[in-house]
């Protein structure tokens, strides 16, 4: 049992925190949001220079051999600074598919671009009726001669507008909710037959709904087994959930700090509002659920590396439940304790709340994962 960071991990944390202090003040972030696609190429290349974009990849693939803990450190820092660059979509998810399932040829084709910051990814998974079920896929890929022909529609593809490559879950066999018969395809975002509708998301990110009309890709576009890729999708989704848990902890931690600071300075009835016991107790409750969430983020981080799929899924699901519940409480109460100021777009606190809320709506909310945990029983 050891909760300490290694020396290297501590240095990583310091350097990420340092970088974000330099380039990610709230006012700087506002500028990035207005850039093309809603994020900063300059910041992204700083991430590349510091090796953050190559962090989780094997040294043999040009990466730095980092594990879950390194990603956790990064995502927590990103949460604190409200980073909008497409790290989750590109490195955690896009890179995750290549790490866990990619062939050597696919890795050689795609990892260098991720690592040097020249290419970004989007994950086209959500469908009209799939909600949070990863097995619910109707977008169809038909074998045709030497490749696949894709038809269907995907929604809320994060970074979908800017991504160079889309990773698309498709059905190659069977019925809508079958676990087998699912493939994962690498699709160039400019392939013929793709059309995109882009929009801003609630938390300031950019996403797109993407439709595929007879989009042709090569046979070799499939990552892993084209008839049985669901386990790979689940594995990467668990990585993404663990990363989101860590990001949420960063968001919650900052929300509580900002709220406590506000309670110390905001005066009403001639005294700081933090002197009122009912508000103190609320803040104490926020602290309690934050620490519970922090523990479960660590739990998810360690669990994401478990190879036994059932054990891994259960532990990550449990963490996502805790994060969802804690995040909702801290997010809502941060606004409440800030009062009117918390309602304004100009104050930072509301942006934490919005990002926390969107995390709850990504890769399964608390109720969804609670059902999963309750169906599979005892936590290890």
């Amino acid at each position, binding site marked *: 049992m050891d909760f300490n960071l290694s020396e290297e991990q501590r240095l990583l944390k310091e350097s990420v925190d340092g970088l974000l202090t330099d380039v990610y003040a709230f006012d700087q972030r506002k500028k990035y949001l207005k850039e093309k696609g809603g994020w900063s190429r300059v910041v992204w290349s700083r991430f590349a220079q510091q090796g953050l974009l190559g962090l989780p990849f094997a040294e043999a693939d040009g990466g730095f051999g980092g594990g879950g803990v390194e990603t956790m450190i990064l995502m927590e820092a990103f949460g604190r600074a409200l980073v909008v660059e497409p790290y989750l979509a590109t490195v955690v998810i896009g890179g995750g598919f290549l790490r866990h399932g990619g062939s050597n040829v696919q890795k050689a084709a795609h990892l260098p671009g991720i690592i040097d910051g020249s290419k970004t990814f989007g994950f086209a998974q959500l469908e009209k009726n799939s909600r949070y079920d990863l097995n619910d896929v109707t977008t169809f890929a038909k074998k045709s001669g030497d490749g696949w022909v894709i038809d269907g529609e995907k929604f809320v593809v994060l970074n979908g507008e800017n991504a160079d490559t889309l990773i698309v879950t498709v059905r190659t066999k069977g019925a809508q909710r079958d676990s087998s018969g699912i493939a994962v395809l690498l699709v160039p975002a400019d392939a013929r037959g793709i059309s995109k509708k882009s929009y801003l998301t609630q938390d300031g990110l950019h996403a797109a709904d993407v439709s595929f009309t007879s989009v042709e890709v090569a046979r070799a576009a499939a990552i892993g087994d084209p008839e049985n890729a669901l386990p790979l999708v689940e594995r990467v989704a668990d990585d993404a959930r663990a990363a989101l848990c860590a990001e949420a902890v960063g968001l919650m931690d900052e929300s509580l700090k900002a709220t406590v600071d506000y309670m110390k300075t905001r005066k009403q009835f001639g005294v700081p509002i933090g002197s009122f016991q009912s508000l103190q107790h609320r803040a104490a409750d926020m602290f309690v659920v934050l620490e519970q969430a922090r523990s479960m983020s660590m739990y998810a*981080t360690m669990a994401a590396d478990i190879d036994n799929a059932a054990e891994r899924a259960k532990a990550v699901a449990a963490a996502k*439940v805790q994060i969802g519940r804690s995040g909702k409480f801290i997010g809502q109460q941060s606004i409440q304790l800030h009062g009117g100021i918390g309602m304004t777009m100009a104050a930072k606190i509301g942006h934490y709340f919005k990002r926390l809320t969107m995390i709850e709506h990504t890769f399964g909310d608390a109720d969804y994962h609670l*059902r999963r*945990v309750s169906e599979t029983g005892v936590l290890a």
Partner: protein
Amino acid sequence: MDLVFTEKEQAFRHQVRQFLRDNVSPQVQRKMIEGRHVSKEEMVTWWRILNKKGWNVSPWPKEYGGTGWSSVQHYIFREELQMYPAPTPLAFGVGMVGPVIYTFGNEAQKQYYLPRIANVDDWWCQGFSEPGAGSDLASLTTKAERRGDKWIINGQKTWTTLAQHADMIFCLCRTDSSAKKQMGISFIVFCLDSKGVTVRPIQTIDGGHEVNEVFFDDVEVSYENLIGEENKGWDYAKFLLGNERTGIARVGVSKERIRRIRELAATFESGGRPMIEDPMFREKLAISEIELKALELTQLRIVADEGKYGKGKSNPASSMLKIKGSQSQQTATELLMEMIGPFAAPYNEHPDSPDEAMDWIVQMAPSYFNNRKVSIYGGSDEIQRNIIAKAVLGL
């Protein structure tokens, strides 16, 4: 970072578990599983077995009979006892008065009391709360007046747990009424069979007799029974309560209860199927398991950090362990209640009688009622929130 126990820690866990298998009476284990009354004799017998092994005062410094274990080992030991389950060492002696004596007591007091605490030659109880001094403990009025080489003690303590078994009491007494309320308090220990001591039972809502009122009417106590310095009792009390806090989450107790809920829910039927297949019940159970897992890891994080706060100082974040630990214990008893449904009703008028024939179900409602206490004693949930707000958040 690694959230699994090391091989050495695992081996230690197995060693403890094996010792429990070899030494805990099956009758005591069954009584604990079913929430029945464990008698004084049964507890003392067990603690003496632990003491013979050198484990009854495990957290104490080695020179006073402790084990020198790591904080993780202490955690494992306690959790194994709670999960087996077997009675954990008597908190009032081992966790409370013992550390005060070896930290602030004189040589004679250490030599006399510490071995007796270790072997449970004396059963200790705690004289802190008073009718007018609950959360506001420092407003206590029980008075100790110096008369020659004696203290004359007058006043009343209450909520005195298991005073009916006790030989000794450690008492906070006012020794200087002119000082500010925290400053004039002293820490005095004495025999409960001293002349002028009256112990009266309080029946709690579960029907049981766990706590008592203790009255002092001109009780004469030797001056030497003062621990540490006169009028410094409040500092010792704070030290004692800080010591108490790390073990207070009682994660092992909740783990054992949840294990039992799962076991029983596989057989108890509702709507023609086992309770465990009822989605609502199952989800409530799942959420309590998740909360408990989070609490367990939080506890271990705080345990791992213990060294940072110095001797006798506890991490103020440990207040959250008390809050969440209470919640876990209460939720588990609530779920047990929910499971037995209409069979919660029958009441046993003699809950302390060792009636073996009595169905264990009859203990479930009393256990639920009784467990409401855990968010009240040892610093209520609200006091813990005050501590977090002030000491952690700086409000």
